């Protein structure tokens, strides 16, 4: 829910267990308590709808009647690999990573190889900033110690009794007419790629085949579509093209099926959230911006619109949610 600074301070002082997202200036004013936080100014809540604000905070409250145990821990780019082992077997962990930080980059590249990652429930998001502003730095905060972290992750591990399930919503799907695209090695800046097994100069291929780089490539994870977007604002006269997330070898990618209207596609897809018993959700800032969510309500979606979402691994242009089952 969106709260004022005063309302948020009151909840912290009452000893509530909280996840908080908001502008840097507001987060810095919060007292110590049982909370973790990260910078973000885009929010979607089912009472206010989409809202961009540096005056309100998004506050998710976790009832201590439902949380048996919890711990708040900080991880740097070396220790983050141990994070899943610290997560409770029953329950879930919320990871907040400052976008572009060493720990963010390490997590984006290697999270699926961390021991125990798929044996625990790991969700979270990338802390960001207002894209219309001049400050392009993100931070996260350990509310228990007051530590302000620009290079490390903050994690709330919660032990809970109920059975839960992690899922995603993705408005994109692979185009059945797309060639299969593969890469020899992990990359965030593509020069060459394999198109149906044949090595090509990728940017030249995109230009010659008039591929719409506003749409992501879709990785096939045994039936789950995982987006890899091209960074916005690039032209196809360069030798390489930059990605908003790494593309990996041994994963088959396809170009996305075109959508008529991003806004309409997101509105339709988000209906899948209705009637679910959701206890955590996070959206992507790109869905917020391209889906024109400002002022629009999305039933059962409550959270920041972040710079990357985490469902085990770092994702883009998706909604991640945890539901009771």
């Amino acid at each position, binding site marked *: 829910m969106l709260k004022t600074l005063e309302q948020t301070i009151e909840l912290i002082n009452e000893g509530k267990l909280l996840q908080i997202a908001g502008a840097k200036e507001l987060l810095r004013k919060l007292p110590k308590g049982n909370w973790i936080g990260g910078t973000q100014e885009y929010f979607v809540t089912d009472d206010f709808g989409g809202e961009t604000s540096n005056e309100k905070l998004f506050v998710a409250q976790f009832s201590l009647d439902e949380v048996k145990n919890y711990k708040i821990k900080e991880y740097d780019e070396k220790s983050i690999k141990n994070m899943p082992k610290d997560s409770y*077997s029953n329950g879930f962990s919320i990871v907040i990573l400052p976008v572009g930080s060493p720990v963010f980059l390490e997590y984006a590249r290697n999270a699926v*190889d961390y021991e125990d990652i798929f*044996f625990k429930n790991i969700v979270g998001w990338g802390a960001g900033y207002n894209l219309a502003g001049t400050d392009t730095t993100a931070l996260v905060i350990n509310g228990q110690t007051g530590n302000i972290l620009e290079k490390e992750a903050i994690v709330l591990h919660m032990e809970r009794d109920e059975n839960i*399930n992690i899922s995603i919503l993705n408005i994109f799907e692979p185009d059945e007419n797309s060639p299969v695209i593969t890469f020899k090695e992990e990359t965030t800046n593509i020069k060459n790629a394999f198109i149906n097994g044949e090595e090509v100069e990728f940017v030249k291929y995109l230009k010659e085949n008039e591929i719409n780089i506003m749409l992501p490539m879709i990785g096939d*994870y*045994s039936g*789950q579509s995982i987006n890899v977007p091209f960074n916005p604002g690039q032209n196809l006269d360069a030798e390489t093209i930059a990605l908003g997330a790494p593309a990996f070898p*041994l994963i088959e990618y396809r170009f996305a099926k075109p959508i008529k209207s991003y806004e309409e596609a997101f509105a339709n897809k988000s209906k899948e959230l209705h009637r679910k018993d959701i206890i955590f959700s996070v959206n992507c800032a790109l869905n917020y911006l391209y889906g024109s969510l400002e002022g629009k309500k999305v039933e059962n979606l409550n959270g920041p619109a972040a710079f990357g979402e985490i469902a085990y*691994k770092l994702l883009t242009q998706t909604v991640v949610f945890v539901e009771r089952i």
Partner: protein
Amino acid sequence: MTAINELQLKKILDQDVKFSQSFTLSMFIQKAKVDYKVNKDLKKALTDVNAFLAANHQKIHNADKELLKRL
């Protein structure tokens, strides 16, 4: 407890089997496939997949039963 044998695992690793009904299961299976392509260690893959199925029956929301039916 859901468990699979080597033959069933080979089907998963070698064929284009989709598990879209469970995000967690499909992400884990994809990791197992990638690990197997790199390591070629079928016994380790079998141990990993069965440990996952044993530990995550509730979490994958009975998708493991669906998986077995399709192998």
